[in-house]
């Protein structure tokens, strides 16, 4: 099943911003049982968040991040079906929502108009729905307990084949798992093949236009080096209170959330460069379907999106582990790609040739990331104990539960527990 990432961005009515904050606070205080938005009922949802940003002028925006399964139509249908009246309350605090009474169709139309699509995105556990992820976790947990009971039987010599047969029987006779006998591929052949085709076409295009690209590229590098030398890196340290607010929300579950907003450097040169980098990054990210983005194995859903006609850049990520381990992964494994993107925004640490230095300057990069980070007012995860890698492990357990495996493959399969 396909996953979709998008944000819904709306204008907050300044007179009602207090009401809105109260609503968001109530949701965040109890994600499951609050009266406004009971997240677990929205079974298509993986991760969601609400943040508020100030606009370039006096306006403020509400951003609702959605990472979900299936089509946009089906998702909006389920979202409004399960939380329509609550969303009506939330959007009644926005200036361009003029409904006095809740009307599902009109709310859907309103939300649809406010959709902002990512320029670049990444999905860690490609092709697995939120429901499937939760079910596979449950399967693993129960099989683990089954194995424990087998090991506890005095005198029971556990061996590979009988144990696997026992696990299969256990799953088959357990009513919770009777529906999981067959599982389709994570992605169809077309879904796997198309991204590579796109990359190939892109590379062929590069070669064909090489005679034009070489002089154009040289010119671009010359201009780039001039603007890079003139760029000023921010020396500001993140405000201590802001930092405190951010860290207080972190490390509650296996995952964390980061939302940042940065201003794109003025002028057409940076604008075009950034759009090109985001486009190429997205092209390459589509080919990554093994759970890693540029070697980082801990990202569930992440995306970059330009807003306000490209004036500012949003970044959202739902990742495993601590903020500092995530940022260290950025620096260790993906500094060039990230520098290539964020070097086009104001205040980023000094770069060379778009992708060098920048994020490698650890202290400056971390300060920049914290300073541009927004407070995540509401954040929901459908599977708070699972990392990308554990979800992959669970999928392998399930996908090979009933397949015919030879002795060696069975031994490997048992290592997954």
């Amino acid at each position, binding site marked *: 099943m396909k996953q979709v990432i998008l944000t819904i961005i709306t204008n907050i009515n300044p007179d009602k911003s207090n009401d809105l904050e109260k609503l968001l606070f109530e949701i965040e205080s109890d994600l499951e049982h609050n009266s406004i938005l009971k997240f677990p009922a929205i079974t298509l949802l993986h991760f969601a968040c609400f943040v508020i940003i100030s606009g370039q002028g006096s306006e403020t925006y509400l951003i609702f991040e959605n990472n979900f399964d299936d089509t946009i139509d089906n998702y909006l249908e389920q979202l409004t079906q399960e939380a329509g009246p609550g969303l009506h309350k939330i959007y009644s605090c926005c200036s361009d929502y003029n409904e006095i009474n809740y009307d599902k169709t009109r709310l859907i139309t309103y939300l649809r108009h406010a959709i902002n699509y990512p320029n670049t995105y990444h999905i860690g556990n490609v092709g697995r729905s939120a429901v499937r992820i939760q079910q596979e976790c449950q399967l693993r947990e129960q099989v683990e307990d089954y*194995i424990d009971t087998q090991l506890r039987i005095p005198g029971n010599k556990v*061996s590979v084949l009988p144990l696997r047969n026992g696990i299969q029987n256990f799953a088959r006779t357990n009513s919770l798992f009777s529906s999981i006998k067959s599982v389709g591929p994570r992605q169809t052949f077309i879904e796997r093949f198309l991204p590579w085709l796109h990359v190939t076409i892109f590379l062929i295009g590069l070669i064909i236009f090489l005679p034009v690209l070489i002089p154009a590229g040289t010119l671009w590098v010359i201009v780039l080096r001039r603007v890079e030398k003139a760029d000023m890196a921010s020396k500001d340290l993140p405000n201590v209170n802001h930092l405190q607010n951010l860290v207080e929300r972190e490390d509650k579950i296996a995952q964390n959330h980061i939302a940042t907003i940065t201003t794109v450097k003025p002028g057409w040169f940076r604008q075009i460069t950034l759009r090109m980098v985001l486009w190429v990054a997205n092209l390459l990210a589509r080919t990554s379907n093994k759970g890693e983005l540029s070697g980082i194995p801990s990202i569930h859903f992440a995306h970059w999106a330009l807003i306000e006609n490209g004036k500012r850049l949003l970044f959202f990520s739902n990742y495993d582990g601590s903020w*500092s*381990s995530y940022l*260290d992964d950025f620096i260790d*494994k993906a500094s060039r790609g990230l520098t290539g993107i964020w070097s086009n925004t104001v205040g980023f640490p000094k770069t060379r040739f778009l992708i060098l230095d920048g994020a490698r300057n*650890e*202290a400056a990069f971390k300060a920049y990331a914290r300073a541009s980070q927004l407070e995540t007012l509401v954040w929901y995860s459908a599977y708070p*104990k699972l990392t990308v*890698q554990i979800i992959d492990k669970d999928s392998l357990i399930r996908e090979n539960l009933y397949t015919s495996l030879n002795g060696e493959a069975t031994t490997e399969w048992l290592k997954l527990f």
Partner: protein
Amino acid sequence: MAGLQVTDIQGFILSSYASNMPCATYMMLRITDYKQGRTWLSKLYADITPASDRKADYALNIAFTSSGLAKFGFSAEEVTTFPQSFQDGMTATHRSSILGDQGINAPENWKWGNKQSPVDILVLLFAANEDILAEQVQASKDSIEGTGGIEIVVVLAAGRQPDSKEHFGFLDGIGQPVIEGSNRESKQFDRTGHATVVKSGEFILGYLNELNILMPVPAAKGMVNFGINGTYLVFRQIEQNVSAFWKFLEEATRKADGTTDLDSMERTASKMVGRWKSGAPLTKYPLVDPVEAAEVNEENDFEYQAGDRDGFGCPFGSHIRRANPRDSLNTDPVKALQSSKRHRIIRRGRSYGDRTKDVFVDDGKERGLHFICLNSSIERQFEFIQQTWINNKTFAKLYDEVDPIIGQHTRESLFTIQQEPVRCRIQHISNFTTLKGGAYFFMPGMAALRFLAGI
């Protein structure tokens, strides 16, 4: 290779002094009067041991908490040139959550280092024998009382056990990185069959780190390079409950007929540590403690990907694999090792308290480890190890388990031992260690000490 400025670096940064000076005492002090404190420091200065000093009878080193520096005249603005972790101190709420210092390990239950008993200065005293140590401790006490302005919060005695084993019975302090430029590579190689050289900037401020970057150096108005040749010192007093540890293992491995299974007990304990009691790594010796491995000196010569990918020797969740995952956390071992090198610490801890006579009997005496480590970034090194490796419930694809030895456990806590045909899980792990105190210190260079003392 960057030459280290050994005349400016305090001796403790480059040497544990353990081979020449097995006796140690740590004094935690509080400043009550800045002017007198400064006089005290100016008198003490001549006794502080720089790394260039190779004397073997006694050594003295000193470090300051952020409150200590503030009392020595650092303005709020100057203090912000230090990293947030050091400014906050170990007991700030967020730092406790990063470190996993909750429940019985929460700062309010500590004996020192918390709000009830704050610490400004740490003085580390080392000596060749108990007599010299007693003399030095007395001299320090006299000088503190004589000058005034300083009071003693707590005096912590330590001493290496005769056989370098910590109280649970395992050889300790084996896997240490070698600081580039310290000329100790061959020494470490001879000692453990392996030496990982790590850039000096990972441990001493003012040098290039593993990313070839100079991290910002803390500054004072009167001394721009105040932090140069300094390091951050993390101190944690960890009580070890030896009888709880061995009694738990005795129960967990009891035979079906109710008798104690000594072999299984010792094997399971070693699985939790990742080494046999002799220090021999399970990755190299998965079946039995070679005992004499300590003599062949190769306790540290192993990697996980080549020798122990499935954790059948050293379990994924064992203490040593969590504390230093070496090359195991990336499909590419070379890249994994590069990342690990950015999260290393130099451990300089020493045991305290008597060795237990019978490990199964609670004799009511306190014993444990004065854990000390050095790093140039508390966030990226000590705290990272604690949060992302030691206390991470999903470390290396594990689920719901933390470090079996030093982690804080709940009723559901597990420890998984990978093996064929299928893993076994030790259930309901209990707590074997308790935190008694701790603080983040900065250990300045000699010139910075002169600046603080006004000499």
